[in-house]
């Protein structure tokens, strides 16, 4: 997103009949600037921003957001956004072993923990980066004249961080894609995401383990159109032939990433870091967590030596996790390349790997040959996700 000018980031724009910040946010104005931000007032510019000045007081929420928001401050200290439990699980598993999770992260070597705190944790996040300003990842700036917004802004907060995947997908920014149908219908993040963002999420080893996450069937019940043959055959749980995640049929190509994600490579495009649209169907290795025998998978930017910029050697258990991971693209459409039945063709002709379209349709699947050739160092990590051994016997293999 376009960054704000330096002065623009800190301007509190008084308009209409407003005469001061009190008219924008009377409750927080009554606390006074220096109570939270430190510094000196009245003073010259240099004195005002002396060593006691704090740009983001909510880095210390127990001091500056309590006592008014005591309960939120208490639980949010362990929320998914604050702690990034899923990232901790990923690192712990690739370092310590497959049976580990976020609770074992503290047993990782010091350089991994230190690098995580300095880089990953710096984005995951403070109260102010959701409720007052744009997040640090886009270099900040007041959103609404320093008014504390109970509901974060989708554009300035949510997709400012979740931009390269969620935002890009939802807005249909990948060439050839349409925007997500829910976006087209005027829905926003919070129309679906009703989970408690401030809850203590220490129980969850990844974002997909959070309770009350939205699911498609919250709105789209199987009985919605009981004669829909495709749903009868492919419903995620209970389909007659192949049970497919909803995303297998209804998502479009989505952003994938290659190479490292540390030391700013993802921002600068260094060391061959790249984002690219791709669509691949993989085998679901966790039916207890995700519906459907078949799901869509996304390549994530992790390599055996991802953490060498942090002073860490190769990850000893790199193969413990797939690098093509379960994904839930936010670019849903009723008709996609998979479900397009223009001209009377059945959607199986766009997907099943047999007959005259086999060579085209096979590009939608995560084959062993594809991983071996394009991601040769990741074959072992993805052995359980590749599709070869689980597709129907009558289909061609690649």
């Amino acid at each position, binding site marked *: 997103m376009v960054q704000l000018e330096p002065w623009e980031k800190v*301007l509190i724009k008084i308009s209409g009949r407003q005469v001061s910040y009190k008219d924008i946010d009377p409750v927080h104005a009554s606390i006074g*600037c*220096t109570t939270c931000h430190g510094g000196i*007032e*009245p003073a010259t510019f240099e004195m*005002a921003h002396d060593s006691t000045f704090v740009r983001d007081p909510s880095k210390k929420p127990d001091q500056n957001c309590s006592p008014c928001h005591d309960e939120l401050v208490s639980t949010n200290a362990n929320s998914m956004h604050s702690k990034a439990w899923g990232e901790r699980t990923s690192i712990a598993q690739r370092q310590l072993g497959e049976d580990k999770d976020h609770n074992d992260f503290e047993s990782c070597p010091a350089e991994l923990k230190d690098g995580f705190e300095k880089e990953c944790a710096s984005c995951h996040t403070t109260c102010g980066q959701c409720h007052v300003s744009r997040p640090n990842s886009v270099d900040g700036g007041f959103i609404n004249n320093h008014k504390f917004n109970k509901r974060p802004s989708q554009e300035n907060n949510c997709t400012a961080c979740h931009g390269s995947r969620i935002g890009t997908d939802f807005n249909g920014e990948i060439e050839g894609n349409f925007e997500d149908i829910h976006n087209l219908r005027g829905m926003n993040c919070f129309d679906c995401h009703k989970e408690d963002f401030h809850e203590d999420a220490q129980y969850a080893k990844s974002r997909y383990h959070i309770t009350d996450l939205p699911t498609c069937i919250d709105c789209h019940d199987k009985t919605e159109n009981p004669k829909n043959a495709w749903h009868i055959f492919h419903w995620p749980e209970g389909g007659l032939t192949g049970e497919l995640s909803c995303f297998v049929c209804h998502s479009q190509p989505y952003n994938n990433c290659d190479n490292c994600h540390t030391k700013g490579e993802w921002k600068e495009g260094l060391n061959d870091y790249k984002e690219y649209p791709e669509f691949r169907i993989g085998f679901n290795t966790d039916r207890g967590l995700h519906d459907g025998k078949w799901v869509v998978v996304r390549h994530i930017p992790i390599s055996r030596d991802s953490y060498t910029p942090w002073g860490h050697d190769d990850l000893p258990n790199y193969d413990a996790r797939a690098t093509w991971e379960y994904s839930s693209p936010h670019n849903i459409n009723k008709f996609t390349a998979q479900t397009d039945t223009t001209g009377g063709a059945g959607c199986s002709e766009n997907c099943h790997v047999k007959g005259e379209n086999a060579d085209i349709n096979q590009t939608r699947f995560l084959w062993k040959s594809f991983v071996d050739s394009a991601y040769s160092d990741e074959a072992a990590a993805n052995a359980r996700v590749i599709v070869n051994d689980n597709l129907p016997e009558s289909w061609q293999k690649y």
Partner: protein
Amino acid sequence: MKQKIIIIGSLISLIAISCHPGEAITNKNDPSTCEGCHINKEALMKLAKTDDTGTSDGGGGG
């Protein structure tokens, strides 16, 4: 009676002060106050031109 008024008046003043521990000092024309500067677009633009430390990294988290 006069003593009671003084005591009650003092108490009310104390309560009023303690409930407003650090209310923002407002003066649109006085850039020496936080608000006087941060509501003044011209002042901020001028500062941004002459100083690249304070305003350029401000406003990150609120």
